[in-house]
């Protein structure tokens, strides 16, 4: 039975909006031109592939459902499990269900803690016991492990490369069909980087990602490649699940703040006078309150509400989801001020420009002037801010969860992983892999988002536009 969480709905709305904009912009030259410049940047296109990889995981993880239970109920109707799963969970069943007892290091075959084990001869000894799943196929882990890892990796790489060359061929054929060129010519164009869109960087990044994911998938079927946490859950699975949380915070927050920022910013700049004064005072006041305070207060109040009304929610996941959505809302409310200020300034400038004056002289109504003349001409600022804010918000989630006013503790998120790592790092011997996993995945996401936004700003910001 499909289950729709609030954040799922909003994510799919966002996807629909982006797709609609894509088709709208395709037919308009002035909207296409800057995007085409972005596509000429190799770094940006590489980042896009990485971001697309993250987005795919997050989208798969946003298709929630309750699985069918094997036995039918008394009245013969299909029974559904209480637990809510996502399509991604289904794909990752093998690593999701293979729990260990407690900590184990990456690629370990033994637990990270000593246990008292009864030997066949009846003696008891304290030693590291074998893991239930990680490396359990090996007879003699100490000797066979390295060889097994290498063999599995090589085999998986070959699979990855095969898939990659298959997708390359399909792409080259498509390109050749579209440009009506010889396949050999297209191949040369792509490898020399002479195409308009930087297919070369796309394909190289794609190849790298494919190989890495195949290797990771094959290895994680046999080992816990990023270890396990305190309750024995696979860290690799946790960090993959955290992707959705990070992306939801990064995108939905902007979705929340955009209406505020755009509406108020443009109104302040366009109508001036007392409207401007009121809006200015509102955002000046709001931005003087420390954001963390506001967020802490709001989140704690919500938590009290959730605890007192537990019966309203069908599942734990639903409660956690509501808290996530609320966090997006409150982050949005505290972060719209800077965009609003930019937009007000830009609108003040645009308002005096001749074509706005001409429209006014032609008797065009305020609403049409704003929607037809001002909004399209400030959209580049909105876009640049949204993309730049994205990485900041992903990092903000980590910080907020670390101080425990972020997402629900039951929800997988990089912030929660870092929070639990606080104790793990203090342990002797230390458990470093949770923090490491969160760091690597967050770093990759934020880095590619930042590289992409740099290219985007170069293309969209008129002040940075170079002479052709």
């Amino acid at each position, binding site marked *: 039975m499909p289950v729709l969480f609030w954040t799922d709905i909003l994510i799919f709305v966002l996807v629909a909006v982006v797709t609609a904009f894509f088709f709208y912009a395709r037919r308009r030259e*002035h909207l296409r031109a800057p995007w085409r410049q972005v596509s000429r940047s190799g770094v940006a296109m590489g980042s896009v592939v990485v971001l697309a990889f993250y987005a795919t995981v997050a989208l798969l993880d946003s298709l929630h459902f309750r699985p069918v239970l094997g036995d039918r109920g008394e009245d013969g109707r299909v029974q559904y499990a209480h637990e809510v799963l996502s399509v991604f969970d289904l794909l990752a069943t093998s690593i999701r269900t293979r729990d260990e007892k407690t900590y184990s290091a990456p690629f370990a075959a033994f637990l990270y803690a000593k246990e008292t084990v009864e030997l066949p001869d009846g003696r008891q000894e304290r030693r590291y016991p074998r893991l239930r799943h990680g490396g359990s196929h090996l007879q003699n882990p100490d000797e066979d492990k390295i060889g097994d890892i290498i063999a599995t990796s090589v085999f998986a790489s070959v699979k990855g490369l095969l898939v990659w060359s298959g997708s390359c061929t399909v792409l080259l054929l498509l390109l050749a069909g579209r440009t009506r060129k010889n396949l050999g010519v297209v191949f040369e164009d792509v490898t020399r980087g002479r195409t308009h869109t930087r297919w070369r960087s796309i394909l190289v990044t794609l190849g790298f990602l494919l190989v890495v994911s195949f290797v990771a998938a094959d290895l994680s079927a046999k080992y816990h490649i990023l270890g396990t946490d305190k309750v024995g859950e696979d860290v690799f699975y946790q960090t993959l699940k955290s992707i959705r949380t990070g992306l939801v915070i990064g995108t939905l927050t902007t979705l929340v703040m955009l209406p505020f920022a755009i509406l108020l910013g443009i109104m302040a700049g366009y109508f001036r006078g007392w409207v401007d004064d009121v809006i200015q005072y509102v955002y000046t006041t709001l931005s003087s309150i420390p954001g963390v305070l506001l967020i802490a207060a709001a989140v704690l109040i919500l938590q009290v509400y959730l605890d007192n009304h537990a019966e309203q929610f069908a599942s734990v996941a639903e409660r956690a989801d509501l808290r996530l959505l609320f966090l997006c809302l409150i982050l949005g409310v505290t972060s719209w001020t800077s965009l609003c200020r930019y937009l007000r300034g830009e609108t003040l400038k645009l308002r005096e420009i001749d074509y706005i004056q001409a429209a006014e*002289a032609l*008797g065009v*109504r305020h609403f049409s002037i704003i929607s*037809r003349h001002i909004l399209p001409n400030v959209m580049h600022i909105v876009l640049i801010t949204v993309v730049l804010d994205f990485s900041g918000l992903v990092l903000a989630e980590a910080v907020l969860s670390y101080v425990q006013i972020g997402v629900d503790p039951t929800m997988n998120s990089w912030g929660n992983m870092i929070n639990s790592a606080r104790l793990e790092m203090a342990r002797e011997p230390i458990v470093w892999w949770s923090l490491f996993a969160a760091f690597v995945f967050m770093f990759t996401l934020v880095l590619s988002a930042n590289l992409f936004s740099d290219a985007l700003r170069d293309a969209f910001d008129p002040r940075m536009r170079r002479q052709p």
Partner: protein
Amino acid sequence: MNDNVLLSVSGLSTHVGIGAQPIRAVDGVSFDLKRGETFALLGESGCGKSMTALSLMRLLPASGRIVAGAVRLGSRNLLKLSEVEMRRVRGGGMTMIFQEPMTSLNPVLPVGTQIAEALRLHAESAGGGSRQRVLELLRAVRIPDPDRRIDEYPHQLSGGMKQRVMVAIALAGNPELLIADEPTTALDVTIQAQVLDLMRHLQKERGMAIFLITHDLGVVAEMAHRIAVMYAGEIVEQADRSSFFSRPMHPYSRKLFDSLPTLSRREQRLKVIKGDVPALQHRFTGCRFASRCDHVMPMCWRQPPTWHAADAEQKVLCHLYGTQTHTPQFSGSVNGGGDRPSLEPDRSVVEPLLEVDALRVHFPIRKGVFKRTVGQVRAVDGVDLDLGRGRTLALVGESGCGKTTVGKGILQLVRPTSGSVRYEDTELTRLAYSGLRRRRSDLQIIFQDPFSSMNPRMLVGDIISEGMKALGLTATPAQRRQKMERLLRQVSLPGDSAGRYPHEFSGGQRQRISIARALAVEPRLIICDEPTSALDISVQAQILNLLRELQQQAGISYIFITHNMSVVSYIADEIAVMYLGRIVEKGEVVDILRAPQHPYTQALLSAIPALDPATKRAVIRLQGDIPSPSNPPSGCHFHPRCPQAMAICRQSYPRRVRLDDRRYVSCHLFDADAGQQ
């Protein structure tokens, strides 16, 4: 080489842009510049003037490069020097000043420091950057009160003073050659006269040569000893001043003269140069001007023309002069039309369309947390105007005098502080938003800058039909499309324009789109805010012809806001001269141009560079700049600059004196009660 030649340029070619088809911005330019003379390079925008100057200085943009030729300053070929040696030549041997004084100075350093820096770079002796030398230079460029100005920052100086500081910096290295790239284009006429006068004076004093780049025939006539006309990357005519102005030889030069609007051409259409400047990407097989020339011959298409010397001073690059059998016949003389129309003003009574009475637009200056009003910028301070049906009123004055604000105040784009604007029987100032919208179609505006006056993200078709849609003038989209096609034909734009974006059009074409947009709502009055000042002379002629035609066909009235007197003399019926928010003189155009009464009008007219030295009035030099409208001088606003100021001028603002039924002037000189005249 002749000792007298300072700078010798031969076969200079500069390409801009990379790839297979670079733009040949300068294509084989050769000329000699003698010591102590002013050599003017004349041409329209995009013909390669500035690129020539930048090539001489070797300051080309990153994508530009000199591909051939030699530039000799004295005995040295500048193109062979290393960058280090070249840096010594710049500023020392020759130096350059630019069009825009606002952006040429560093805003965070006092001007004295910036001049001292230039002095330190070039002065050989120790103590080159001393305050004494800086003050000397400031005095040399006639900056009043140099002791105070030396420590001021650029924003505290007016445009004219900034340009003088630029000249001072240029003089720091004692250059033999000053390259001036449109040095006065951004300045007002009275300030332009001051700067040009200064340059002439410095030239005489220091024996410096000036390489003057301009598009303004008047400036050329005032300044130049010799002239080169540039067209599409090459020089097409070289002559000394008197031969050039009495007998321009190249068809292009003649066309430039013919397209100048003047009083005597009022009754005719202005001559225009058909077509556009050709793209400079490809090589030319024949004459570059052939496609636009009225005298084109078959051979013009086939082979490039060669130089023909008319006499020692004048030579031209044109086939017309090569064939002995054919002597070119041009109609008309340079300074006037063939048959002189009657220039008597039309005294017939016209119905009034618009009456403006005591219009005031003040902008409050606010300060502090509570935005208390601490003062007023009196941009418009009591302006009276009236305009008849089908008439044209020119509102003239220097920048900052409030002309544009009057226009916006009439349209209620800026709500007036007080006063009345009566259009037919409606008082516009009292109309609320919706009432005003119903009147919007009657009054329209055309702006100066053809680039900022259209939303770059809208199709031309949408831009033109926006007003029709907003005001619900046409019922169906089909009607709208029909009307739009008619409008495009009317302003002679290609029929497929509607589906294109504004950036695909040239400046003149964009101005036509603006006109079409205004016409779409069938206005009775159009306020033209400097509609031609961003355009070249030949394009200006096209726009003026179009406006004139529309007036004759549809009886539209214009309020023409401009500082260009030659445009005024061509198109206007009446003139109102503004100074610091008030009208100082108003009357029929012929009366005012022939016999200006107010000292400011006289000075304004005398400052305009004249083409024909014979008709040149004695220049009345105005001191200083326009005062700030937030703090106007007491009494008559003009008295601090007025050469004829009297005691009473400091005390009271003069009342309006009627000279005849159409003419008045606000000056104590004409006020019988003030006991003068």
